[in-house]
């Protein structure tokens, strides 16, 4: 257990308790099903630093220590090592709700529920029956608290960024003509796991001209392929993303030209990523560069949906970055800014970096040079 982590976990609980006090909620019951998802915040992990193996709940009373209910009795030691000051309760997947409700009845009322976006119908029906009422809505309490990274969280995102760099280096070193896409993805995965990643929200696809990024298939790499890499390792629960393009061979002048446009767009987007600015400004700056180059129609759906998104522990604020997004950037938000783009002449190319928003602007958390990569390059 790292003392700094324990302090931060206490801080998070205190923040939630402050909201409970002002909202008139006695206890917040937080549910997560254990289905980790890079685009969804896991509130149980955020509160306890435990990546659960199955369904779990955290009960946070308006005052006093929380309880963490896990559904594998053999996994409680791992839960206790995280630094959480929550009382760890060994439950079972078939008893989670009955155990939680029994404990909830001894805690301050009324009860609100956070987790309706993850709690299956059958589980909710059991909760409702055992509580003999509908819990209050509590889904909006945690996400705003999790919008910015605390120091130990940021350190993990930074490490995830370094691992992403290692993953892309593996692509550059190991991609070969004749290799299947999934074999290349396996090499990247193994490289990043060895470097400390426990997971990867990764997509690697290739082709002479691609429509968009996609998962790896059994297709064999061919000379001239454009290998699209969205590399997103998870380090101790926190994700960072690197988007780059690798040409298996020598890039065509057109590919080099388009990539120059994307690099200019990324610089423009980064310049707009400052605290107090709306995220829409990032998308507008990126789209302005690409539109000026003659590709305005490809800056809209179905070709393009977002120019980045919040990323850290699952999807967090500022969520998707597009011209109509309304979030305002804050100090210590972490996100990926990616002017990935389809253009007819080259197909889809990927270009993007993980950043943390600081007072002076964004700081890159991925260090891979911003350029087009190709095989046999010095």
């Amino acid at each position: 257990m790292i003392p700094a982590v324990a302090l931060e976990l206490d801080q998070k609980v205190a923040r939630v308790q402050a909201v409970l006090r002002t909202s008139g909620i006695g206890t917040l019951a937080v549910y997560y099903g254990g289905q980790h998802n890079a685009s969804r915040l896991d509130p149980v992990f955020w509160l306890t630093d435990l990546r659960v193996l199955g369904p779990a709940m955290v009960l946070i009373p308006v005052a006093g220590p929380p309880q963490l209910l896990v559904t594998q009795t053999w996994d409680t030691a791992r839960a206790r090592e995280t630094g959480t000051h929550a009382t760890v309760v060994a439950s079972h997947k078939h008893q989670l709700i009955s155990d939680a409700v029994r404990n909830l009845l001894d805690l301050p009322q009324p009860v609100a529920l956070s987790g309706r976006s993850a709690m299956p119908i059958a589980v909710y029906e059991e909760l409702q029956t055992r509580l003999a009422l509908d819990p209050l809505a509590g889904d909006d309490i945690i996400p705003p608290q999790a919008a910015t990274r605390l120091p130990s969280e940021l350190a993990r995102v930074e490490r995830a960024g370094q691992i992403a760099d290692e993953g892309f280096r593996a692509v550059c070193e190991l991609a070969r003509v004749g290799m299947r896409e999934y074999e290349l993805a396996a090499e990247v995965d193994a490289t990043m796991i060895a470097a400390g990643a426990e997971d990867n929200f990764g997509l690697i696809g290739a082709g002479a001209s691609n429509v968009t990024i996609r998962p790896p298939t059994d297709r064999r790499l061919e000379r001239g392929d454009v290998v699209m890499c969205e590399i997103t390792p998870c380090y101790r629960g926190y994700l960072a993303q690197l988007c780059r393009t690798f040409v298996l061979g020598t890039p065509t002048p057109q590919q080099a030209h388009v990539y120059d446009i994307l690099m200019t767009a990324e610089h423009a987007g980064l310049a707009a990523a400052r605290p107090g600015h709306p995220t829409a400004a990032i998308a507008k700056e990126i789209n302005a560069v690409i539109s000026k180059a003659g590709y305005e129609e490809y800056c809209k759906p179905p070709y393009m949906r977002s120019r980045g998104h919040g990323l850290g522990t699952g999807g967090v604020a500022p969520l998707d970055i597009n011209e109509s997004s309304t979030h305002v950037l804050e100090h210590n938000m972490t996100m990926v800014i990616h002017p990935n783009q389809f253009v007819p002449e080259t197909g889809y190319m990927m270009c993007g970096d993980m950043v943390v928003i600081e007072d002076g602007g964004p700081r890159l958390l991925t260090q891979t040079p911003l350029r087009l990569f190709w095989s046999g390059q010095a």
Partner: protein
Amino acid sequence: METLHSVLKHGAMYSDWNAFPRSVFVERLSATKRAIRDSGDDAWIVYGDAQNYGELAYLTHFLPRLRSSLVIITPSGEPVLLTCVGSRDIPAMQVLTWVTDIRPYWRLPEDMAQFLADAGLTNSRIGLVGVRESMPIGDWDAIRRNVPGVRWTFRDAEFGAVRKPDEATARAIRHAAAVVDEGLRAAMTFFRERPTFRAASAEVERVVRRLAAEDVRILVGGAPQNGYQLRPPDDAPILAEQSVPFVLACEVQRCWAEGATTIPGHANRPQERILAETAERALSAMVAAVAPETRARSVWDAAMRSLDEPNLRACAAAYGMGGGIGLDANEEPEIVEDGAGSFASCAGVALHVVLQRNRDSAAAGTTLVRSGAGFAR
């Protein structure tokens, strides 16, 4: 065995149409349509998410890598697959399914309501499969609000009667089990060569993902600093003298298989050896007890009878002893003390025994596949 779910299925995403020819799905779909007609419903919706998608994959061969997907089946029409991606992602989804009508959605309650309206189903009777156990209550409430005229019925039991273990699934589980075996063999090498659980597990993942695993789950134990218990691989050092229980599950072509073994330490201490042999003996007892008509509790009893120490029985019980496996990593019936379900509808059965005594720990596990009138390793 329940393990750490990944943030995305990021392995080999393609379809082996030789292993799963279209005719397999046409037959499954026909049986489902007959069941829909028998139920009197106008349509069924079969739902799955990134963790539980067996029913959906059975009909479509599709698996949601993230979030959820569903297929809508009417008695006379072609199936329609709704999946949570952008429209530009549809070509990549097409390689994962034989269903040709694939539509993207971003917000399920709104987009599903629109689909039902377009299909003339807003005042219909719709059966639901996989929804009650997996769909989040938030989405469900919104869907019901958006299409108040639909009369919904949960049809999991009816679909369960349709879903039969067939040779295509059994063959795919067998293939996944062969990949697991390769992974277990690799573990025997790499857990002797690499310094940490994480480094050794990385090599195992490399091996099985290069063999086209779509998803991989690892649990590893025996580290003194971890109390010898199983957990996802971490930076605990591998001690040469310590034995390591190792559990591996792999998904290949939508089908899961699982295995477990004890990687012996260099010290080869008698206590370690005896514990590993005890786990293997309990596993053998379970293997011998599994048959299609067997109740899950009988398999449990077989294991418990072979474990003569109460603390070993308690340990095995805490870790669980397996259950059905196939298109989901954890299927019914679960092997528990009072398990009344039989294995009649299982294409595969995963069995494992994890034991711990003082500073020794051991694991043994295998996947049985439906073969003729019984199951085979």
